[in-house]
């Protein structure tokens, strides 16, 4: 069970949420591509109050040589939270949480990047969370996809990170901080909007199969909306917003 604070009120009497959203409404999302001059590709994503910035470097020579793969590139993904990104300052450096998120994010992106195009090389994806308000791993995945596209790295599809969850026995899209802290379940997914495939999946809490299905439906709906914003950001970067 998440949180375990079942008696915290998270829904208004009219069924809306504390921030006024309906159950299937996501927080506002803004995306910019190509915002870091030193990187090959980069992206800035603001999702609710979350802010993630991603830089992509490479393909470059993979070293040390023992990490090289003869038939494909390796993706070197790091997810990191800035010390000032959370309510209480966090000490700089990796911890168990950031290592796990780095690993599953890398595996999500490996599922779409055409790694076989770059044997023996390395592509670095650096995810920096500057402000955290629940859902940063999803925002990081979305931002990483835009940054990889901005770097011109060929991909089968982009990946959209989005989560639904459960609060007060009600399935809702895109948990905010209070809902994440005091809710009953969280279901983050990495969705490929064109193929409809899933390349990232985690869950914790308590969901019935019906609730899982509804949460998944919400995630797919939101992924289509976020995908449009991702594409618009890349178009803005490369042809001044002309379709």
């Amino acid at each position: 069970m998440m949180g375990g604070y079942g008696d915290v009120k998270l829904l208004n009497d009219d069924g809306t949420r504390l921030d006024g959203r309906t159950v299937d409404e996501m927080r506002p999302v803004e995306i910019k591509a190509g915002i870091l001059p030193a990187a090959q590709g980069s992206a800035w994503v603001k999702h609710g109050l979350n802010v993630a910035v991603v830089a992509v470097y490479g393909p470059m020579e993979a070293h040390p040589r023992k990490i090289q793969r003869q038939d494909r590139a390796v993706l070197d993904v790091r997810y990191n939270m800035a010390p000032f990104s959370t309510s209480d300052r966090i000490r700089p450096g990796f911890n168990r949480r950031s290592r796990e998120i780095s690993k599953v994010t890398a595996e999500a992106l490996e599922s779409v990047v055409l790694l076989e195009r770059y044997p023996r090389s390395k592509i670095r994806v650096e995810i920096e969370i500057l402000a955290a308000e629940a859902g940063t791993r999803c925002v990081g995945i979305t931002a990483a996809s835009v940054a990889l596209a901005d770097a011109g790295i060929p991909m089968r599809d982009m990946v959209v990170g989005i989560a639904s969850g459960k609060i007060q026995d009600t399935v809702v899209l895109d948990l905010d901080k209070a809902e994440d802290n005091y809710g009953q379940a969280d279901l983050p997914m990495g969705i490929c909007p064109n193929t409809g495939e899933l390349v990232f999946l985690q869950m914790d809490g308590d969901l019935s199969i019906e609730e899982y299905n509804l949460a998944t439906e919400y995630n797919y709906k939101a992924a289509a909306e976020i995908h449009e914003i991702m594409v618009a950001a890349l178009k803005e970067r490369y042809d001044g917003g002309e379709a």
Partner: protein
Amino acid sequence: MAAPVPSLLRQELERLAESDQRIDGRGRWDRREVQLEVDILYNAEGSAKVTWGDTVVYAGVKFELRTPWPDRPTQGSLMCGAELRPVAHRKYEPGPPSPQSIELGRVVDRGIRESGCIDMEALCIVPGEKVWGVMIDIHVLSDGGNIFDACGLAAIAALRTAVVPAERFDVGEDHVLAVKGTPVMASFQRVGGRFVYDPSEDEETGGEERIHITLGNEEHLHSLQKGLKGAFTPAEFAEILEVARTHCGELRELVSSMEGN
């Protein structure tokens, strides 16, 4: 985007210096365009983003309650740290803090601390028991050269927007952090034999020693640092100090303009 061969870059910088030119077309004492945004990050009690040419830097301020040092029971504390994470440039590798990032954080820290812009006594809540610790963390996201000046500017701008979160710690009402003065850094690097202001990444790669000067509101010196191999004369220092006065004054006005006062 690939890094130029250092020896060829150095030759080119020397050739340009003969006719007093710079690789990006600037004059010797010209600054790149600087943009400053403040109070932009949720969760940070003060924040700033500096875009300085191709350099992008964020700074965030956090507060924590701590017990004072035994020899300074009525004083809070200030800590300023910088991270050169691999996000900022392909030349940075993951790992523990590098000597470079420690130097960067400490030079910025000294400029702010020694200017006296933060009244440490005002950070005391209960003498001998409870004081505020102010933590400024600087995050370099894109290293396009001269990260020192960008980090110094981001740090003081973030500090000047900081709100002490007293309510969250149950020690009174939230209030604006009192900051008296705006210390500003100006950095110079020897490129092609002579000093230039605000070195670009290419100039840093192909340059020699660098000098960082932090000036306070009264144009007093608050931190100096010479980095990398090289030797300079007092006359050279006198010349760049004059340039520093002009640029620090302009940037101080930029910081003040952000606060609407």
